[in-house]
């Protein structure tokens, strides 16, 4: 693995995140697993070290070329497993001593894995976390088979796991517009460097499913609608100078539509929302709007066209010959002025997580955290394991109006929510 010739290009999404890097911000996210007993850090460290070589995308360092950044195998020993901190998803130094872009934490009975988004998306990180946990449990005598997303650490990494699937499927003849227009921006008082406020609500997945079914929508559509409802209410209460559309940035896992085993990024964004300038939307109307939006846009044709828009930029010979420093300035400005402005909040749903049957008795729950938002706002991440659905809000602002309206709405809908938070 120390062969520096085995470099690989950053994928389409992965190219954007390093340009947004600043001393106080990194595009980092976290996936966590809670077991039914306290974590033993020494065993976890060994399991981490054993697992890492199986995942070349995580055992990598980011380097700067003249035109692009690229990843190359990282020969340094695995980073140390650390005791968890109150402020997760801290910025990552791309040029740290060990050059790793991952972190592994433990706290009580929880193992958390943080990843710089250039390396992988939620599914890749989750695969790594499940494999580490399986190795950890095996080291304590539990026989866990290699199934349900647990990879065999003794086999060689597959090329298909490292491929840039975007380029493989970005072949639409037409491409949609990049900008969706500006959306309502939640403004709040920025927390001092570096604080990440988490409010996590857990509930029975059964209740959530029943509430969504009552309205004839899926859980993802339902959650989107509740978040949009919270944002619309917040905009009303804020009495803003000029009303704007409320839109959610929601990553879609493209593996559902295009066959791919990649452990790197393979997601694209869709933007369900409503425009309150057209009139007041009831919750039912928001649900309908989101439902039909999802049905209309989330299919292989639209998604292929969407990723082709981004791929075209990277394929353009003019853009390829532009030096990296100039690309960095342009991409950052584009992200700041267009991409970031077109959504009011972020929401991701990792869906129902499955683990091998033999592992199930040891696992209590999963959690996911979208990490620090680029601009002061709030991001929401949902994950379900067995009958527990957890909804985690991460924000770097003091105000928690969105979270309050969101969870109160769920309670009104008859869902019993248990709240936990790292706020003082």
């Amino acid at each position, binding site marked *: 693995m120390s062969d520096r010739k085995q470099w690989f290009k950053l994928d389409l999404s992965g190219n954007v995140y390093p340009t947004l890097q600043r*001393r106080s911000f990194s595009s980092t996210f976290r996936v966590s697993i809670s077991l039914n007993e306290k974590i033993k850090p020494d065993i976890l460290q060994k399991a981490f070290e054993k697992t890492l070589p199986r995942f070349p995308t995580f055992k990598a360092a980011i380097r700067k070329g003249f035109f692009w950044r690229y990843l190359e195998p990282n020969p340094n020993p695995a980073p140390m497993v650390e*005791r*968890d*901190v*109150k*402020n*997760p998803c*801290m*910025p990552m*130094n791309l*040029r*740290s*001593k060990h050059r790793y872009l991952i972190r592994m934490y433990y*706290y*009580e009975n929880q193992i958390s894995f943080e990843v710089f988004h250039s390396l992988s998306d939620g599914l890749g990180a989750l695969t790594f976390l499940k494999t580490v946990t399986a190795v950890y449990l095996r080291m304590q005598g539990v026989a866990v088979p290699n199934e349900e997303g647990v990879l065999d650490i003794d086999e060689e990494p597959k090329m298909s796991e490292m491929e840039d699937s975007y380029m493989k499927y970005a072949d639409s003849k037409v491409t949609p517009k990049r900008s969706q227009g500006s959306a309502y*921006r939640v*403004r709040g008082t920025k927390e*001092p460097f*570096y604080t990440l406020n*988490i*409010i*996590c*609500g857990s509930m029975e997945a059964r209740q959530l499913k029943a509430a969504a079914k009552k309205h004839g929508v899926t859980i993802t559509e339902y959650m989107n609608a509740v978040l949009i409802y919270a944002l619309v209410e917040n905009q009303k209460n*804020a*009495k*803003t*100078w000029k009303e704007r559309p409320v839109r959610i940035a929601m990553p879609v896992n493209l593996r559902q539509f295009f066959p791919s085993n990649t452990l790197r990024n393979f997601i694209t964004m869709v933007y369900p929302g409503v425009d309150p300038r057209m009139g007041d939307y009831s919750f039912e109307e928001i649900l309908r709007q989101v439902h039909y939006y999802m049905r209309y846009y989330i299919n292989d044709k639209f998604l292929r066209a969407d990723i082709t828009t981004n791929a075209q930029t990277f394929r353009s010979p003019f853009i390829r010959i532009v030096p990296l420093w100039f690309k960095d300035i342009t991409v950052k400005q584009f992200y700041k002025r267009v991409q970031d402005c077109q959504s009011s909040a972020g929401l991701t749903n990792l869906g129902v997580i499955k683990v091998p049957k033999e592992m199930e008795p040891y696992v209590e729950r999963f959690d996911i955290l979208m990490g620090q938002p680029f601009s002061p706002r709030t991001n929401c991440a949902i994950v379900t394991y067995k009958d527990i659905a957890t909804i985690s809000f991460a924000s770097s602002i003091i105000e*928690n109006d969105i*979270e*309050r309206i969101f*969870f*109160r709405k769920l*309670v*009104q809908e008859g869902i*019993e*929510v*248990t*709240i*936990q*938070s*790292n*706020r003082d």
Partner: protein
Amino acid sequence: MAYCVNCGVKLEETLSKCPLCNTPVYPKEMFVADEKAPPYPQERGTVEKVRRTDVAILLAVLFGSTALGCGLLNLFVYRGSLWSLYVIGACAVFLIFSLPAMLYQKLPYIMMTVIDGGALLLYVAMVAVVNDGMRWYWEIAVPVIALGTFLVSVFIYIKQRASRSILFTAMLVVINIAVFCVGLNLSIRYYLDKRLAITWSAVVLVCAAIITVALITVMRSSRLREEVRRRMHI
């Protein structure tokens, strides 16, 4: 396990108030499990410092060799004037500006500002000596640079210790600009007429006073402050 009476959510056992609306749990002894480990750790993590020694060495070599090269050229090839002193001085000033920020990150910002001001004064002194302009150096350059350094230091000091709000920062900037303009005006007048008098800077001073009073009014009234924040999106 307690429920929030406002939000209707169940609260995790270690919470003593609702994180959504800050309603306290009552009675605390009955519902809050103090002995249980909280779901999130209490220790804060710190971000690893970025090491910039390599860039600092590269900069030192780059500017050092530029200064040396120009000095040698001036000494042996283009001997007409002491032009190389400008380049050597500029290289030295740039190094003094950038090296402490890269190598001694623990050095207080005020100290860095004072060092930068000193470097600028020395550079301008060198220009004054070469051009035989010690009068403007003492009567304009020294007071203006010293005042600028002092105002920047005061700004940093107050920003570090007092409020971080955007309105307060705006007020500080306005006051600093006004004081600097007055200083500049006084030194130029003294250089030209040998007397201390305020002319154009009086207009700046009046404008700054109006803005400052308005900002203080906004800051003191929480209702007004909220309204301005909401309307201006700050």
